[in-house]
């Protein structure tokens, strides 16, 4: 049988920027407290699960939280435990480029004390050799927090 010729290619674009998505307003209350270096979690009044950042419906027990009232909010610690981590060897940009060892960012999945959720963050002021599962870490607050999620993107080891 003859080799089938290569097909004609037709290109197209699917721009995700054409769409809009909604997010919950009560995140405003969460981020406003970050400006005061305080972390607010949502505690399900039915099963006690604590979410950071907050959610409207408890994914454990399916109860709806009443975040317009104070009862379902709880202060949580800015300290936590590393659940998992990664060390980024390659920079994604214009192709993949190897990072110099001292420039490899350390990423962690942290469970803040008193919460049942894990959040992503970058671990700073820590050498690669010291990172491990179970290590204790704390939010590295900037002097003047901005009052958005970037305030809790960086942690340092305790």
């Amino acid at each position, binding site marked *: 049988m003859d*080799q*089938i*010729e*290569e*097909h004609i290619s037709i290109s*197209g674009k*699917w721009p*995700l920027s054409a*769409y809009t*998505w*909604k*997010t*919950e307003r009560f*995140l405003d209350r969460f*981020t406003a407290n970050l400006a005061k270096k305080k972390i607010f979690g949502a505690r399900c009044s039915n099963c006690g*699960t604590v*979410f950071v*950042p907050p*959610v*409207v*419906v408890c*994914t*454990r027990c399916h109860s709806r939280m009443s975040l317009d009232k104070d009862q379902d909010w709880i202060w949580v610690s800015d300290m936590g435990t590393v*659940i*998992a*981590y*990664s*060390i*980024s*060897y*390659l920079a*994604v940009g214009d192709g*993949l480029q*190897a990072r110099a060892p001292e420039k490899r*960012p350390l*990423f962690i*999945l942290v469970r803040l004390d008193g919460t*049942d*959720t*894990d*959040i*992503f*963050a*970058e671990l700073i002021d820590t050498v690669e050799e010291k990172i*491990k*599962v*179970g290590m204790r870490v704390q939010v590295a607050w900037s002097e003047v927090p*901005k009052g*958005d*999620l*970037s*305030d809790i*993107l960086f942690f340092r080891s305790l």
Partner: protein
Amino acid sequence: MRNLAIVGIGITKHVSKRRDVNIPELVYEAVKTALDDAGIQPKDIDALVTGNMPAFEGINCPELWGGGYWGGYKKPLIRITTGGSTGASVAQGSFYMVASGLYDTVLTLAFEKQSDGNTTIGLNSTAMADVANMTAYGLRGPVVEASGAIGLFVYQATSYMAKSGCTVEHIDRAAAMLRNNAAKNPFAHLQQSGVTAADIAKTPMISYPLRFGHTCPASDGACAMVVTTEEKARKLSRKPVWVNGWAACSEEPAIVGLFGAGSVNVDPAEQRSCKLAATKAYSMAGIKEPWKEIDLAEPYVPFAYQLFIYFERLLLCDEGHAPRLFDQGVMDLQGNLPTCPSGAVVSSNAIGAAAMIRIAECALQIRGEAGQRQVTKEVHNAVAHGLGGQANFNVVTVLGDKPNRR
């Protein structure tokens, strides 16, 4: 509920770019092979179930384009898509159809033609609603980058390693075994016969603990199977492969986008949903002690360390013991519980098809028709697994050489 069996199997040779076919034509190859294997025509098919990743090739409802090529003319057809586990979910859709008595003979097919698509846009289309909102609230930069693609699984890897004592060297050795198995599989994408753990260890680290040598390629490929009733299976096939148990379980997303808006994030190495799905599927298949009764396993392994974690979460050994059993040769082609003789998803990843191929490979092993990758041990019962969603969706199928009398 009726007994059912797989009587036809078609898998295409996986490659990085099939420039000579479009999606309907690529899938046609798998469908034709499966129909020929079953010795039937499209007129003998009562319904179809299809699936692939949504948006990865920029086409939703690809069955509108390909349905006619796949024998779907004037037939009921549904599409199922669950991320990485799509192929297994699609297959299970056909199992429900036959077991329920609604249809006798169902064609199930799954595919991905990654070279036609844009994986970044595809992934963004699944994560964007979550990530975009969090970005609006100040999430930025390197943390966003660290969550993409491989970024999702490095956390499962380090958490698992801390729990089990699995080392990067174990992952190198697992990758070497899987690459060598793939070299015996004519359908596999990567063909690297003779590659050693030392060779794998020389490949660059992407994100600790995963190197290039531990990761899957992007493939073009398709898989199709014919599923039918006990009565018809006995007429059509000399060796029907019985679908004795199946289950799927979803849990709270492990690492969704960023900050897991809308859900609890759980430790990605925990994988309770896999254990629950496995428990249910084994029970349905009448298997009480999987570590004794299962002869072969095809866990979903797009990254080499998952050979260990899913061997454990499929309840084939105690948690934390898989790396040691691997070192003892238990998972080899000649081993006591050969695992991923196909070379696994880490050697061929046409995403939508990948989890169905795990089932098809188990079926070929039970038929004794797996060629060079046929395991030494006689295979009576095998378990196939698919992993999807945000590492939170597990699909488990148990196959046997005899029907389980329920």
